């Protein structure tokens, strides 16, 4: 017979984070649209933008395309997907209930970010694999690319959670899509920053999308060395956004 004699206390942070990440990841996979958004759309874009009819590019088209699609996929899953999912969880009081447990906010947000990170390992593998099929010739050190993807996930995840935790779900939905679009075209992913006037490009390169995209292009397309400035830019965004999300995130 179960006894309910009180023995309260919070679990260790590591155990909570592991459990939270596992649950968030399972739920991500169960959410069909989410999986579609994350896995299928980038592959379709990779295929269509690789067709030489839209606009001309210098060099081999697919070698430009794969780093772009990787950046876009990170931004879609970590920013837009996470923001919208979390926004609606807040709206439907999912998070209110979690707020009444021993789970700290930081661990909830980190768990969500880690779950997206795991999803992106699969996503990156698919994009790269499909790229190879389309004739992609990767250059550079894959570890640098991996670091960029992780830093990008943390930065975009933090921004997405900050948005979801502070405004209404409907506003999150609209804003997450709009910002995604702006970053896609103005942030160096769909259109190389070299096509912009120099003054604008100097400013735009500090957007997280531009840093991620530029870093990935430097490493994977041009075989560049350790992408110091881009990695640093992303880590600064992550270092600002994640604590801000934890600070201002409201459960309800």
């Amino acid at each position, binding site marked *: 017979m*179960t006894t309910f*004699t009180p023995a309260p206390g*919070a*679990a260790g942070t590591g155990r909570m984070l592991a459990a*939270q990440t596992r*649950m968030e990841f399972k739920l991500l996979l169960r959410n069909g649209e989410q999986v579609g958004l994350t896995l299928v759309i980038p592959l379709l874009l990779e295929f269509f933008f690789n067709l030489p009819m839209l606009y001309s590019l210098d060099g081999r088209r697919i070698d430009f395309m794969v780093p772009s699609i990787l950046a876009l996929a990170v931004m879609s899953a970590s920013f837009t997907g996470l923001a919208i999912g979390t926004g609606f969880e807040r709206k439907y009081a999912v998070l209110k209930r979690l707020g009444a447990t021993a789970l700290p906010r930081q661990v909830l947000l980190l768990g969500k970010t880690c779950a997206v990170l795991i999803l992106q390992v699969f996503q990156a593998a698919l994009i790269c694999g499909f790229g190879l099929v389309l004739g992609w010739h990767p250059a550079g050190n894959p570890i640098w690319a991996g670091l960029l993807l992780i830093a990008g996930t943390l930065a975009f995840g933090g921004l997405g959670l900050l948005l979801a935790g502070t405004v209404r779900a409907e506003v999150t939905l609209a804003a997450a899509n709009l910002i995604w679009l702006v970053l896609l075209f103005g942030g160096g992913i769909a259109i190389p920053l070299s096509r912009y006037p120099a003054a604008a490009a100097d400013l735009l390169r500090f957007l997280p999308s531009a840093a991620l995209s530029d870093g990935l292009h430097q490493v994977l397309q041009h075989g560049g060395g350790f992408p110091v400035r881009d990695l640093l830019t992303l880590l600064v965004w992550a270092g600002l956004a994640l604590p801000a999300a934890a600070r201002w995130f409201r459960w309800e």
Partner: protein
Amino acid sequence: MSAPAVEVRNLVKRYGAATALHGISLTVARGQLLALLGTNGAGKTTTIEICEGFRRADSGSVRVLGLDPSVDARELRPQVGVMLQDGVGGYTGAKALELLELFGSYAAHPLDARDLLARVGLAEAASRPVKRLSGGQQQRLSLAMALIGRPALLFLDEPTAGMDPQARRTTWALIRQLRTDGVSVVLTTHYLDEAEELADNVIVLHEGQIVAEGSPAELVRSDAAGKIRFSAPSGLVIADLQLALPSGAQVSEPAPGNYLVAAPVTPELLAAVTAWCAAHGVLAEGLTVERRRLEDVFLTLTSSSG
């Protein structure tokens, strides 16, 4: 650890121009069960959510296990189990057992999730997604989620709403065991029988004010005259009957041939009434005994608005 489970003083809460709580005070001793009874909008959920730290009071003080819920949330939350109104909360896409295990993973010494699920009667629903559970099943899962961390104090907001009678009985038995095991409980309810069955103390809230408080027995006793009714030929000498009864009993004949004895109903009173009738050769027909239940007290207290 000697601080009361809950101590609330002069709590005031306003929503815009409306005042939801007009300065209520209450104390729950360790190991006690308090029922907050009231109609919709009486202020039950507001009170409980302030204690849970979800809302802040406009004035007054709140101490839960000796801590301030709006300041010491980090320290308090692991010690408190919560059952929110309206469904489970938490991830509705998760399976019942998964969600319960997740909540267990937040606690240092959780109960076994599978055992607990069986205990609330959901063993067969373990792998069903939460959103496919019936309303009553969701309530039971929600209760299990509140319990799994072995809290010292539980806040249960309408724990048996939407349950069938069978499930309510099972839940009552569980809540009684919680008390036996030393868990302090605050629950809100619309159901008078629930308060009467479970509570050490009942507080009746009406329009944000405490209109009555005490043990269920005290509340029923306090202003609770019972009634004995019977029919007999009209014209009995009611003053004579009244003399034969314990002092304080009021006898009247509201309609010809219908008699009413108003007094706390005891076996002695009933015996005295029937003895007087026998002595006077009167056959008391259709004799009925009405004892006040908490329901009568509640209806009396909350029917006069304002």
